[in-house]
Structures are given as structure tokens and as C-alpha cells.
């Protein structure tokens, strides 16, 4: 029997699934009301998952190991999905287009589905993880990853639309997308949020390593992959300000950056070995 917080997270997963369905149906059926339902479901998911995080936090105190719930793979996944959702809702509101939903909310959904399949208990922290730097590290990294997720989703939209002639398309799903210029801009803006967050994430991670082991950088696979992600986005930023490198190439770099992000997050633990304890 799962505890309340996990049940609420399961409900969140379900909500993200339904929202994904409505957004996609809205695009294909060209029914605005379906997309509006998607937005309401996402808002509900935001409330439910925020409550779940709070409850999990309180439950950890009841168990005598009180701490922010950002310290194992399960918690980082739900935090990631939570951030994507909030980031998405913000973008949707600001840009007044619900077409993004079909490309961004699925990322949150699949993240939660993955979380659903793994160990969800609250475990006490091993000594190495007992550090405020760690909390700051996880929060900044995953908020950054969430911004990259939004950027990559939008980059896919950009590429789809650009391949079919950009803003000249009339009719069809693509006509519902915002202008390529707006998409291109949003790809950049999301990264302009994600990049400083990732930078802060890498720095707090280095500070943590320095306090725990006396080296701020040791080229272990997880660290190196976070640097790779950082370099790809740095390339993106400079590509954007160079003639001939924005638009399509920038969108491709954004997607490549997100692929590297996912590998850094999960691939390193599943495929490579290293110091980091997540995923075990």
C-alpha cells in the first residue's frame, strides 16, 4: 500500500496522460475546447503534484528523516515533471497558444510514467547526501532541465513548421502553431532560463563535491555529462547570435542539448558508472 504522497503522484501521472491526450486531440480535431480542457487538467495536475511534494516532505519529517524531497531518483523525476508543467503553463499563458501542449506535456507525462515504475519510498539519506548544497544542486539542475524540455518541444514545432514552408502554411495542424519567429524566439528564451539554472546547478554540485570530497571537479561521468550539456547550450547561445546559425541549426542544437540532458540524467546511471548515487 503506497502512502498518500505516492497516490497523489500516481494521480498526477494520470492527469498528465489525459492532458496529453486532449492536447493532441485538440490539434488533430482542431477543437479549441479540447485544448482548453488540457489546460485545466494541467492546472489540476500542478495543484495535485505540489500538494504531493508538500505531503511527502511532511511524511519524511514524521519518519524522523525530514528533508526536501529532492534526494533520490524518484523525487528528482517528479520534481522535473512538476517544473516542466509549471514552466509550460507559464509559457502557454504568456504566448496565448495552446498548441505547445502537445509537444511539452508528453515529456512530463513520460517522466511520471518512468517514475511510476521505480522505487518510490522515502529512504533516509546516506551521509554523503546530507548537504544543503545537494538540495540547491538538484533543484537548480532540474528546473534547468525543465526549461530545456520546453525549449526542445518548441524546437520540434519549429522544425516541423519550417520544413513545410514556415509561416506560409495555411490550414492543417501547422497553421495552429505560432509563427516560426515566435517559436524560434521561445526556443531561445527557454534556454535563457535554463542555462543560468544549469550553470548554478553545476556550480552548486561542484561546491557539494568540494565539501564532501575535497575536489570540486573530478571528471566523473555524471559531471562530465553535465558539462557536455552545458557546452551544447553554450554553442546554441553563440549560434543564435551568429549569422546563418540561428533558426534551424539553433533548433537542432536545442534538441541535441535536450537529448544530452536526458542522457546525463538517466543514461549515465543506467549505462555508465560513477560516483553519483542516483538510480543505484
Amino acid at each position, binding site marked *: 500500500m503506497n502512502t498518500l504522497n505516492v497516490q497523489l503522484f500516481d494521480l498526477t501521472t494520470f492527469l498528465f496522460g489525459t492532458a496529453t491526450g486532449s492536447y493532441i486531440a485538440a490539434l488533430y480535431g482542431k477543437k479549441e475546447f479540447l485544448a482548453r480542457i488540457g489546460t485545466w487538467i494541467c492546472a489540476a495536475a500542478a495543484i495535485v503534484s505540489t500538494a504531493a511534494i508538500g505531503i511527502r516532505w511532511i511524511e519524511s519529517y514524521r519518519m*524522523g*528523516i525530514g528533508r526536501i524531497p529532492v534526494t533520490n531518483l524518484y523525487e528528482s523525476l517528479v520534481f522535473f515533471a512538476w517544473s516542466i508543467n509549471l514552466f509550460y503553463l507559464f509559457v502557454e499563458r504568456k504566448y496565448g497558444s495552446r498548441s505547445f501542449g502537445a509537444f511539452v506535456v508528453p515529456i512530463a507525462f513520460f517522466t511520471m510514467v518512468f517514475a511510476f515504475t521505480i522505487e518510490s519510498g522515502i*529512504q*533516509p*539519506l*546516506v*551521509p*554523503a547526501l*546530507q*548537504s544543503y*548544497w545537494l538540495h540547491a544542486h538538484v533543484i537548480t539542475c532540474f528546473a534547468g532541465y525543465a526549461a530545456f524540455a520546453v525549449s526542445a518541444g518548441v524546437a520540434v514545432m519549429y522544425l516541423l513548421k519550417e520544413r513545410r514552408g514556415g509561416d506560409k502554411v495555411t490550414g492543417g495542424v501547422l497553421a495552429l502553431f505560432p509563427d516560426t*519567429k515566435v517559436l*524560434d*524566439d521561445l526556443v*531561445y*528564451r527557454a534556454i*535563457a*532560463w535554463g*542555462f*543560468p539554472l544549469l*550553470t*548554478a546547478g553545476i*556550480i552548486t554540485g*561542484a*561546491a*557539494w563535491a*568540494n*565539501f*564532501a*570530497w*575535497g*575536489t*570540486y*571537479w573530478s*571528471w566523473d*561521468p555524471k559531471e*562530465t*555529462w553535465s*558539462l*557536455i550539456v552545458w*557546452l*551544447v547550450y*553554450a*554553442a546554441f547561445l*553563440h*549560434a*543564435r*547570435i*551568429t*549569422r*546563418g*546559425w*540561428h*533558426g534551424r541549426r539553433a533548433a537542432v542544437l536545442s534538441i541535441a542539448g535536450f537529448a*544530452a540532458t536526458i542522457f546525463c540524467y538517466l543514461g*549515465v546511471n543506467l549505462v*555508465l*558508472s560513477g560516483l553519483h548515487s542516483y538510480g543505484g
Partner: protein
Amino acid sequence: METVTDVRTEPVPVPAAVERKRGKPFATEAWNFLISLKLAIWTLIILALTSILGTVIEQNQPQDKYRQVYEDWAYNLMDRINLFDMYHSWWFLLLLCLFALNLTCCTIDRLPRAIRTVRKPKLILDDVTEKSLGLTERWKSKGAVPQWAEAYKAALARTFASPRVTETDGAVHLYAEKGVVSRFGAYATHAGIVIIFIGAILGNVFGFKSYLSIPDGTEASHLDVRGGKEHLDLPFAVRNNRFWVETYPSGQPSKYASDLSVIENGREVLRKTITVNDPLAYKGIWFYQSGYGEAGGATAQVSLKRPDGTSLGNLSLAPNEPVGIEGYGTVRGVKYDENYQGNGPALQVKIEKPGQPASDVWILQGRPEQDRLRNDTLVFSFGGLTSKMYTGLQVAKDPGVNVVWLGCLLLTAGMMISFFVSHCRIWIRLSEGLKGKVEITAGGTANRNRPAFEKTFAAVLTEIRKEPSDNAKENPA
């Protein structure tokens, strides 16, 4: 195709060198290459791609391990190009140098111009400037130029930023700006990166890393550094008073701790309990809790009582080391059995009294009163084995680490400025018009986030145009 988005509204200026006369083609070409953003992008991508190698091939493993995995030819090739320690290989360092060089040259090329633009801003709203601005507004007002200039100056200062006033023939120009630092965000970011490199180099040249194992109750001051190739004596000693592990109710470790003292000239000068994530620092040398283990043989804890129950204290028995008891004899622990005849942990002690044959006695941990049955003058009871621990300390001296943190700070601050501060400029020109009216032109621009600036601009103008003192009637053109 040039897409000027509303985030970065001004394209990056073409490098100065491109505009320079092509006197020395090769030198110019080389310089243009070194300062180019294209080189920066490719260096970043190549650094990212090559870095992957070192995460796929485990680094710095013993030779045998690689030989098991790779064929001979592959091993030789990989060894030749330092793939087993690639982050310190000559080619990776060369790549990093190219990257730093690119960054430095680019800064040399652009920073002076950025400073010039900021120090000598365009104070006058002439026609050319006016045409280049995205936002302009014109109106006319009754009255005299100086009077309106004063009024708008005050209004601008109140609603936006204090303007600079320039008079040209027949016109007064107000220029106000905000967020100039925005022009330097990228440079601060780049400087941060270079400073981090410098910090890392300082740490590598003047610092060291080492590892110390100190058994409980002993001290150490000798270090092996650079993989055991060099030795170093600390000007002080570190004593491990005690190492211990605390656990959660579930039995998982919750805390590794060492009670450490720094001994200098035979005196304790500092004492601190360190845990993982909470190191000890003394004279620039840091000691981190990083491991532990059992240090040699365990000792048996035995308590002594008189038959009437008065306690005489505890004995710690090391294996086969006789311990004397005044007025009694000597006792030594000889054997330990985890489960002696099904009665749980027990210790066999050999008791030797002067002039008597030695006797071997088993004392059980689970039955503290059992030894009374011997009817001796002392009653022994076994309190269990305690093993002596050693603490494993990572020792580091890194004089570059604060430089690295400084670089990180600059990097992050520069980035925030770069992305979130916009250099907003507003000009107002007042000139004498016909029929005793003043012609006013306002213009504005921002280097990023134009939509936000459009709102600011509109709000500032609305405020300003309310300004007119009651005696002067407004008359929008």
C-alpha cells in the same frame, strides 16, 4: 537571413578586424579566425563530443583492466593518444587552450568598443539615430524650449532615469539610459570562465591531494602526494581521537564522524568533529571524512567486580597481551568464540596468579554473573569485542579554489545580467517650432526584450506628457 528577435534586438557587431584594411592577409586572416564566433561554436561542440569518450572509457584504471577489455592493437592506439587519462592529455589541454585563446582574443577585439559605446553614448537625437530607433513619438507644445526641457528633465528623472542634457543650435537633447551593465554581461561571463581556468591551474600547480588513514588514538603528519611519487611532512600533526558510525533505526549508516585534533609543537591547537560534508581546515589544508575501516586486532572488553558486587572498572584486552591486576595476577584474552557451546559470544581468558598454575576460563557475554561459580576473589564478565577503527581522510590543499569560486560568481552574475538586464535608452529632442510652439521628438531602444521596453516607453511617455504645468496647454501633433 538575419532574424532580429525581440530578445536580442541588436545583432552582434561585425568584428573590427573585418573592417580593417587587409594589409597583411595572413595575419588578418589568422586574427579573424581567432576572434570568430564560428571557431567558438565549433570548439564548444568538439569539446562536448570528445568529452564523451572519457565517460565511455573508464579513466585511470589499472593497465591490466584495459588489457582484458581491448585487443592489443586497440589498447596500444588508445594508450598512444592518452584515452585512458584523456582529460589530462595533451590534445584535450590543447583544445582547452584554443578555447581560452579564442575567448581572450574575442574580448580584446570587442571589449574596447563596448566600453567606448558606453562611455561616449549618443547624446544627441539626430535624424540618423531617429530613423534607426524602433520606437519614436512626436508632439508639439506651446511654450519655450528651456521651460519644457526643464519640465521633461525632471519628469524623465522621476519616471525613468536622470537624463543628460546637451544643447545644439536651436535644440535641446535629453538622453537617459538604464541597465548599461547589460553591455558587459557576456564579458563578465567570459572573464568568469578564464578565472576558473586560472584557479584550476593554481590548484594543480601549488596544491596537492592525498589520503591519510589514522587509527583511533594515533596521529599522523606524513603524506604521500602525486600518486605516491612524492612525500610531504605537514608542519603539524592530526590526531584521530575516535572514529564512529551512527545509524538510522533501520541500521543504515546516518553519520560517519571523526573526532580530530590538530597538534602543533606538541600542543592541541584545534579540535573538531568532522563528518562527511563538514571538513576540518587548518593552515589552508583540508581534511575530509572519506573512509574508515578496522585497524588491526579487536580488543575484548572485560569488567571486574568483587564478589560483593563493587565494581573495579574495565579491562581492555588485546589478543594475547597479558594485563596485570594488582594483588591478583595477570589476565589475558586468548580465544574468542562467536557462539560458545550454543551460548552466544564468549571469551576465553588465561588467568595467571603468582605461584599457581595458569587456568583457562570461558566467560560468556550473555551471562554476566556466571563467573561467580568459580568462587574466585574477582568476578569477570565479558562486555563484547570492540574493534579498533581507523578513519580515512582525504587531504587537500587547493590555493586556487577561492579563485574558482570567484570565477563561478562572475560567470553566474554575468549570465544573469546578460539574459535579464536590458540596456534601455530614451532620447527627447526639443526644438523651436512655428507659432511659438516647441517641437518634441522622443525615441527609445533596448538591446533585449523589446516588448517589455515598449511598455516602459509608453508608460514613461504618458507620465511625461502629463507633466506640463497647467499654464502650458498641450497640443499633440
